[in-house]
């Protein structure tokens, strides 16, 4: 069984392109061209140069000694937090902006929740001198003021999404609506492994640099390119897709996907989609999503604005269904505790999203010498206010 997308754009029963006819030409253009572009020598060369010299890749794979001692395993951190703009998101935006340029697009649109993907998109648009419009929920604009300011400073227009719950899912709806209205000159730069085919596959390929480097670095550092386990957080799932990608078919590497449980999986305030959701169509893709008995999408909750998405990418829905990945979750408090711990014993302030991945370490029963890679997808600068507020409560 393959865990990669099939020729029809599906991962088993998940995926596809459930789009209004209005978007058919846009998606068809992308579907017909994305592999040709991604596999062309000129793309590969430019992508690598930008990742090396602009983003700062390869990111280190760091053996966290004190963390390892505490949990009784060899815990390596893949330092995506050290990327330019502070998270893995830029791997994808660099790749897609090159695709957009190749397709001759003049206007870039994107959705953002916490603002990380918005910032990463605004950054590459500044770099490439392209117009950038970022849709962001009105609620998120208020919650994430520094990132809104960064996007504006980078020259992007930030458009508030005022529909529905005024958060990430609605920002995504607004971006899709804009694309419907501007089908010819506009490129929709999606930030995660979600959306209609070919986006989930394209974004996974662009993020797969993470697991490609983990393999090379582990080989050098341990003599074996395969760890026993990889842990990554999942909102839409792009950092997890990147960290898992080159290990999908290597069965003895255990894949752990960590969702945000908010105030508790069954508290009614959660974003643990795989536990609470079931099969449906969201943002153009068949996947697992949180919905009521009539198929109305339920707004999720997490302290981490990067994880409160009501669906997961179709690849992850498939990994969950086939039990190729183990889906765990961490509450707000567990994530906060994990963040404070990493800060104190390793001197690294993680993003709240990445803290969810770290938060499952205490729940594991490791055997001595087990090699565990945690994908540290982003840095915590953007979450300082939350960290400071909650530190007072500790």
């Amino acid at each position, binding site marked *: 069984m393959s865990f990669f997308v099939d020729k029809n754009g599906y991962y088993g029963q998940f995926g596809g392109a459930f789009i209004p006819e209005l978007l058919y030409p846009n998606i068809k253009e992308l579907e017909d061209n994305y592999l040709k572009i991604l596999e062309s020598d000129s793309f590969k060369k430019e992508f690598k140069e930008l990742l090396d010299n602009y983003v700062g890749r390869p990111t280190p794979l760091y053996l966290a000694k004190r963390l390892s001692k505490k949990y009784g395993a060899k815990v390596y951190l893949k330092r995506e937090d050290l990327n330019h703009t502070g998270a893995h998101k830029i791997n994808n935006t660099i790749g897609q902006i090159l695709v957009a340029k190749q397709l001759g697009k003049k206007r870039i649109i994107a959705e953002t929740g916490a603002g990380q993907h918005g910032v990463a998109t605004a950054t590459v648009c500044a770099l490439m001198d392209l117009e950038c419009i970022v849709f962001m929920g009105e609620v998120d604009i208020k919650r994430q003021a520094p990132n809104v300011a960064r996007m504006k400073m980078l020259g992007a227009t930030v458009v508030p999404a005022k529909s529905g719950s005024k958060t990430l899912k609605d920002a995504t709806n607004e971006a899709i*609506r804009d694309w419907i209205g501007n089908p010819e000159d506009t490129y929709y730069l999606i930030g995660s492994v979600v959306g209609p085919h070919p986006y989930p596959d394209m974004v996974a390929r662009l993020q797969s640099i993470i697991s490609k480097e983990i393999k090379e670095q582990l080989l050098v550092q341990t003599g074996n390119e395969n760890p026993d386990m990889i842990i990554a957080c999942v909102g839409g799932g792009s950092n997890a897709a990147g960290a898992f990608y080159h290990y999908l078919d290597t069965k003895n590497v255990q894949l752990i996907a960590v969702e945000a449980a908010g105030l508790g999986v069954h508290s009614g305030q959660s974003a643990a989609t795989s536990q609470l959701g079931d099969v449906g169509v969201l943002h153009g893709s068949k996947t697992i999503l949180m919905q009521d008995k009539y198929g109305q999408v339920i707004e999720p909750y997490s302290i981490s604005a990067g994880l409160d998405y009501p669906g997961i990418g179709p690849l992850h829905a498939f990994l969950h269904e086939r039990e190729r990945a183990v889906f765990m979750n961490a509450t707000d408090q567990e994530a906060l505790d994990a963040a404070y711990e990493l800060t104190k014993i390793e001197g690294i302030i993680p993003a709240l999203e990445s803290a969810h991945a770290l938060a499952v370490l205490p729940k594991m029963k490791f055997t001595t010498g087990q090699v565990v890679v945690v994908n540290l997808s982003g840095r915590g600068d953007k979450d300082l206010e939350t960290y400071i507020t909650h530190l007072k409560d500790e």
Partner: protein
Amino acid sequence: MSKLTSLFSEKQHNLLSVFFTAGFPKLNDTEQIIKNLESNGVDFIEVGLPYSDPLADGPTIQHSSSVALENGMNLDIIFSQLEALKDSVKTPLVLMGYLNQILKYGESKFCQKCKDCGIETVIIPDLPMIEYENHYQQLFTNYGISNVFLITPQTSEERIRKIDKITNAFIYVVASASITGAKGEISEKQMAYFERIQKMNLKSTLIVGFGISNKSTFNTACKYMNGAIIGSAFINFLQEKGVAEIPSFVTEIIE
């Protein structure tokens, strides 16, 4: 022969369809809206199933959907409302909803309910042709349901011909590259697009929608196509004037 097919066999010009969101402005307005539209000469009626994430809809229909959901509208309620009207309403009704609603409700159960209510036509904007052919065509046919496809100014001639071939209701001609909602007058560019479609001599009845808001845009659309659908403008009217004033809205357009 479906009600819509027999309508089209009798009337081929100036067909007027009106869209409303079920459950808006009030949960139980469905009967009064449908009866008012019918008695004032609307040829067929689109009943919108309110959805939390209506991708193809503009602010007006989004808002009406949110209100309808807050009012408690759901598929069970709309089906029971429509079933009660089955014998008294002769005007063809078309259900418009998003795929996830149907998936979650159960595809066969949805079809059975449509049949029970005398619904023979559905519009599911996020159900692409390929998925329809692979997974829905047979099921819908079994229940006597026709699916309506949309075409836009960007749809290729080859694809339009294919849609024409598998259509047995009507083709929904989206007036411009946009989401639903009023946009003022019909531009020359749009007229050129209508003319291009007109010249293709398609077998299907052609109904224009998205941006048809008043007598003037309705008449222009009807010069090229068999008829037109008014949605957002009617929702706005309901919001401002209320259900009781519907006769004046319809007569304004067809008088």
